[in-house]
């Protein structure tokens, strides 16, 4: 098989609506990897975006059994990236939920699948921190000010993002990253600590769990 033949096979398979996802994964990855094609060219030839084709190919790295399960569920392609990134347990959980649970509370299947996988994977520090409410952040800013051991710019930052959160804004990655630094600073300075006697034990534990302290 040369590259032209491989491209033809890939295009024909990609466009074939009668084939299962599993069959498509097997045929296309076989042709792609046999002759050393590149993603951009192949994606262009089959009229897919490079990200779409790369994500599809990455599904082929999963075990045959998992590929078969995904194929049976035939999830929308917006979920492919998530399945390709997960481990067997996370994928199985999401696939099972796809078939049984209500998705109505989520804005998209993609978010639904992600949440199912996160239930197994555990939330990242970024997830938990980004969900701190405006009131919680205001409280932390006030407590930090009371302690008078934390840099005033950091207190100002806490107040700023607390206001933004109250207005419904989603924190940016940069803000989340800086917030994690500030929370660590608060922990270092004992503003937040385990078994807090300030009536905020629940919030302190939540933050300390999130930053793994």
């Amino acid at each position, binding site marked *: 098989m040369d590259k032209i033949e491989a491209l033809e096979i890939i295009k024909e398979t990609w466009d074939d609506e009668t084939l299962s996802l599993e069959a498509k994964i097997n045929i296309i990855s*076989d042709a792609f*990897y046999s002759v050393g094609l590149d993603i951009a060219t192949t994606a262009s030839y089959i009229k897919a975006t*490079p990200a779409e084709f790369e994500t599809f*190919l990455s599904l082929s790295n999963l075990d045959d059994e998992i590929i078969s399960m995904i194929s049976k569920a035939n999830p929308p392609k*917006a979920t492919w*990236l998530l399945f390709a990134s997960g481990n067997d347990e996370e994928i199985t959980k999401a696939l099972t939920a796809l078939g049984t649970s209500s998705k109505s509370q989520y804005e998209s299947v*993609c978010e639904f699948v992600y949440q199912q996988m996160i239930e197994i994977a555990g939330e990242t520090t970024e997830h938990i921190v980004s969900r701190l409410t405006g009131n919680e952040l205001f409280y932390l800013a006030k407590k930090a000010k009371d302690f008078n051991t934390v840099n005033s710019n950091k207190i100002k930052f806490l107040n700023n993002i607390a206001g933004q959160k109250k207005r419904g*804004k989603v924190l940016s990655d*940069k803000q989340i990253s800086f917030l994690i630094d500030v929370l660590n600073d608060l922990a270092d300075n004992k503003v937040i600590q385990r078994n807090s006697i300030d009536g905020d034990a629940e919030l302190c534990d939540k933050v300390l769990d999130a930053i793994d302290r």
Partner: protein
Amino acid sequence: MGTRVVKNYPSPRLMETIGATNQTPQEASGELVANCFDARYNGEKLDISIDLRGGRIVVMDNGKGMTSEVLEKAVCIAEDMSQHIERGEGAKGHFGMGFKTSCSTLGYFYEIYTRPYSQNIELHTEFDINEYSTRPSGSDAWDVIIEDGAPSTSSPLKSMAHGTAFVISNLKITGFPTSAVLEYIGDAFKGHIEKGDIITVIDELGVSHTARPKNYSFLKGTKVIIDELFGPGNKYHITGWVAIDTQTHNNGFYGFNIYRKGQLVLTHDKTWFKAHLMTSRIIGEVNMDFLDATFYKQGVQQSEDWNYVKKHMETFLMGVVNASRNLSKMGNINKPSERKAIITQLSKEYTVQNDGVEAPVNGADNQQNDDSRPTSSINNTVKNIVTEKSLLLEDGSEIHITFIEKEEDGHDVGPYDYIFDCSQEPQELQVLVFKNHPLWRKKIDSEVRKIIATSDAIYRTLVAELDLDPRIALKIRNEWVSQRTETL
């Protein structure tokens, strides 16, 4: 009624046609080198050079040269040379097409200079492909003029006592791929080089490079020795090795190099296992002297022998395939305990040699060599999914937008891209940003990055996926950007 004899002379245009092959420059050069091995003189080591200087290609050997009688036959199309010269068991030329095909692939004009070992003469002949095309068909159309005279130092053979030089000029190719030829030749004639024959490529600047077989980098303890004797009456004997590479390959450069009589006939063959990223660690070399080769030695014939061997080797390699898969998944290659277990299992199933490298040394797998590397999880790749402002179209339909940042450099894709899914309602536009792409090393606000990537994805989706007029798509995109920036 009756019969008549038609003089069936092929058109001289055939000389041009036989050069219209899909041989690469390295394969064509390799074919000319292969012929040199059929001319070994008295068991001497061969010194073969491919000289690329002066806008021509000169392939020269110190073999026994060709006598006038042999040269007369060699210049004929499709002459079976084994009828005219004595060669060893490993003879490479069979069909009398090799040098004509290869020379015609490389250039429009080629010459042969040869000095037979027992005679103090030099023979010369030349082929002008363009001139052949103008010749009328007929019995004289294929005439070749052979000149003979005293050896001259002005010939490419200079002061050599015996040998042959092919000189190809008026080249069809520009920018001869020197390094690719060197690598190909090193692999193709590995057996000969290891026995002391020398093949040199002299580049356009006059720098001399000696061809050497490729060094493989495979995991220690995974080199499986192949010595398989099987088939009716033990007809088939395959020797060689297979091992697990330290890294996976998505460029096709894995599988088996197959040799016949010391010459490479197939590179990176993956017939014996399912080609896949997970099996792309499988590398090996095998000798299959029983194979037939096509005249241009680009592939084995799809013979009954080949199919029989395929079945046998598929079964033989099952353990190796499993090892490649197991090492490739879940980052096992980087976990000493997992790696050891897989390699130990391999040693139970096969005879293995203990050379190779201890752990991955380069490539994508060289991240951490201890158990601290987390196993595959959604958290390793996707840190969060953010819902972006939806896109409302004039027909009332809605496109839901999600934004995902991946912990990758997007080297095959770019700094950002998208996946559009119209199989569900509402339709979903998934915007992907590859966080480690060099573009994002520049200081740029993450919100701005998000808006740039999403707005571009919106425009491309509207035009490429929904067939909207680019002007309308631009208007919709700009409206989205305008509304989105209000929340900054």
